[in-house]
C-alpha cells in the first residue's frame, strides 16, 4: 500500500514535470517549423544577400528578396518608440511607486492595465483613422501613415510593459535605503534619483528590453499605420514597412510553398531570433543582477 502510494506520487510528479516542460517543446517546435519553412529561400539567395539586400520585390520577376529595408524599418520604429515609451514608462512607474497616494494609485494602475489590454488592432485603427489625418492636416506631411505615427502608437503599447516591470523593480528596493538617504538630508527626488533608481536599474533595464521586444514584434499597428513602403527611410516622417507588417500583409497573396512564402517564413525566423535575443538578455540581466536586499547592492 505504502509503496503504491509512493509510486502514484512519483507518477504524478512526473506528469507535472512533463506538462511544464512542454512549453519548451512548443518553443522548439516553433523554431523547427519556422526554420523548415524558411530555409528553402536560402537556395535562392545567400543569407547575406537576404539580410543586407536592399531590394524587396518579392512579386516581380525575377523577384528580389533583400529584407534590409524591412529590418531597418523595424529597428527604426522600435528605437523611436523606445525614445517615447522609456521615459514615460519609467516616470509613470516612479510616480506610482514613490509619489502617488494610495487613492491615486488605485486609479492609475488599472488605467495602465487597461492600456495594456487595448487590442493592437484597435490602436492601429485609431492611428489610421484619427492620428494619420491629424498629422497630415496639421504638420504638412505627404502622408500621415509613417514611421513617426507607427512609433507613437507602438510607444503606447510598450509603456504598460515597461511601467509594470519597472514598478515591481522600484517597489522591491529595500526601505532602509530610502530611509538612510532621507536621513542624510537628501530630498525625496534626490533619494529617487541617486538611490532608488540606481538600485533598481537592473529591473528597469529588463523592463526596457522587454518593452522593446514587444514593440519589434507588434504586427497590427505597423501593418495599419506605418505606411507600407519597403524603402529605407530618409526621415522619421517617411512611410516604412517593418518586418511583421510584411509578413502579415503578404502572406495571404504569397503562393503556398513558393519562394515568397518561404521568404516570409525566413523573416519570421529573423523576427523570432530578435525577440529571443531580447528575452535572453533581459533574463541574463535579471538573474545576474538580482535584487535581493540592501546587502547585495
Amino acid at each position, binding site marked *: 500500500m505504502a509503496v503504491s502510494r509512493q509510486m*502514484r*506520487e512519483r507518477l504524478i*510528479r512526473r*506528469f*507535472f*514535470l512533463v*506538462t*511544464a516542460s512542454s*512549453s519548451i517543446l*512548443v*518553443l522548439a*517546435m*516553433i523554431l523547427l*517549423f*519556422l526554420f523548415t*519553412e524558411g530555409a528553402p529561400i536560402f537556395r535562392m539567395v545567400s543569407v547575406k544577400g537576404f539580410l543586407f539586400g536592399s531590394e524587396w520585390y518579392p512579386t516581380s520577376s525575377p523577384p528580389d528578396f533583400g529584407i534590409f529595408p524591412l529590418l531597418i524599418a523595424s529597428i527604426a520604429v522600435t528605437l523611436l518608440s523606445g525614445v517615447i515609451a522609456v521615459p514615460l514608462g519609467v*516616470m*509613470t512607474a516612479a*510616480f*506610482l511607486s514613490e*509619489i*502617488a497616494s494610495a487613492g491615486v494609485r488605485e*486609479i492609475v494602475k488599472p*488605467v495602465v*492595465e*487597461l*492600456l495594456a*489590454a*487595448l*487590442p*493592437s*488592432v*484597435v490602436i492601429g*485603427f*485609431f492611428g*489610421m*483613422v484619427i492620428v494619420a489625418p491629424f498629422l497630415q492636416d496639421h504638420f504638412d506631411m505627404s502622408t500621415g501613415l509613417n514611421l513617426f505615427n507607427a512609433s507613437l502608437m507602438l510607444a*503606447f503599447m510598450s509603456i504598460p510593459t515597461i*511601467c509594470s516591470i519597472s514598478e515591481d523593480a522600484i517597489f522591491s528596493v529595500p526601505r532602509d535605503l530610502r530611509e538612510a538617504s532621507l536621513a542624510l*538630508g537628501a*530630498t525625496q527626488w534626490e533619494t529617487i534619483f541617486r538611490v532608488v533608481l540606481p538600485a533598481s536599474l537592473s529591473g528597469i533595464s529588463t523592463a526596457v528590453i*522587454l518593452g522593446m521586444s*514587444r514593440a*519589434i*514584434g*507588434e*504586427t*497590427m499597428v505597423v501593418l*495599419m499605420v506605418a505606411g507600407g513602403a519597403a524603402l529605407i527611410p530618409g526621415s522619421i516622417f517617411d512611410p516604412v514597412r517593418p518586418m511583421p507588417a510584411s*509578413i*502579415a500583409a503578404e*502572406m495571404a497573396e504569397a503562393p503556398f510553398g513558393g519562394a515568397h512564402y518561404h521568404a516570409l*517564413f525566413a523573416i*519570421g525566423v529573423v*523576427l*523570432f531570433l530578435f*525577440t*529571443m535575443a*531580447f*528575452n535572453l538578455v533581459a533574463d541574463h540581466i535579471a538573474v545576474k543582477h538580482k535584487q535581493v536586499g540592501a546587502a547585495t547592492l
Partner: protein
Amino acid sequence: MEMQDDRTLNRIHTRSDSTSLQNPGLMEEECPRAVKPEKPVKRPLFKSTRRRRMLQSGVFGLFRAAAALNAAALVIIVGFLVVNGWRAINWTFLTQAPTDSMTKGGIMPCIMGTIMLSVGAMVVAFPWGIASAVYLHEYARPGAGLRIIRLGIGNLAGVPSVVFGLFGLAFFVTWCKMGVSVVSGILTLGVLILPVIIGTAEEALRAVPATYREASLALGATKWQTIYRVVLPAAFPTMLTGSILGISRAAGETAAIMFTAAVFFTRHLPTSPLDPVMALPYHIYVLATAGTNIEATRPLQYGSAVVLITLVFGMNMIAIYYRAKMRKVRR
C-alpha cells in the same frame, strides 16, 4: 548652504564642549579658527535647499504629467472611438450578419467567432497552464532544470503574435492538415496565451499560505492530495481571474488568427471545428484597409471597434475588480 552651516556649527559646539572641560582658556582662540570656512565641499548640482526643493517639485510635476499622459491616451483613444462608433451600434448591428458585400448589416458572426476562438483557446490553455504552474511552484526545486523551463516560458511569452501565426500556419493548418479553421485558431491562440495563464496561476499558488500545506501534510496527506484537496481549491478563484485575462488577450489578437482561422466573409456560422470563422479584430482590420468601400463602411468599423473594446475591457474590469477584492479579503 544652510545644511553646511548647520554642520559647522555643530562641530564648533561639540568641540568647544570638550575643550572647555580640559582647557577653558583655549576656548576663545579655538572658536574663530573653527569658524573659518573650510574648503567648500563640492556640491555638483544644487546650491540651496530652496533650489533643491524647486527641482523636486519640477521633476515630480513631470512624473505626474507622464502618468496623466497615459490616462489621457486611454481616454482619448476610447473616447474618439466611442464618440464615432456608438451610433452604429443597435440591435440589428449586434444580431445580423453583414449584407451587401460587407457594406451594411451587422457583425453577429464576428462576435460569435471571436467568442468561440477565445473561449476555445482558454479551454486548451487553462488546464495546461495550471499544471505547468503547479509543477513550477509546488514540485520544482531550484536548479538548472527549473531555470531552463522558466526561460522557455519567458521566451514563449516574448514570441511575437505574427510568429505564432506563422507557426500555426505551418504546423496546425498545413502539417496537421486542419486547414484554416476554428480548431487551428483555437490551438494557435491557446499556445499564445499559455504564458499568461502560467504567470497568473503561479501568482495564485504563491498567495496560498504555506501553513495550509503544512497542516495538510501534517495530517498525513501526500503531496498530491495536499495539492488537489487544499492548495488548488484555495488558489482556484484567483486562477479564474487569470483565465479571464487570457480570454481577453485572445479575443483581441489579430495577427495570430489571420493565417490560421479568420476569413473575411463566410455565409454561415461554422458548423464543424474545421470550418473557418469571421472574427471581430480581423473584421476591423479588413474593413479598414481592404474593404469594398473603406470610407462608406467607417461607421461599421468604428462600431466593431467599440464592440471589441467593450468585450475586452469588460473582461479586464471584472478581473481587476475581482483581484482587488481578493487582495482585500486576504489582508
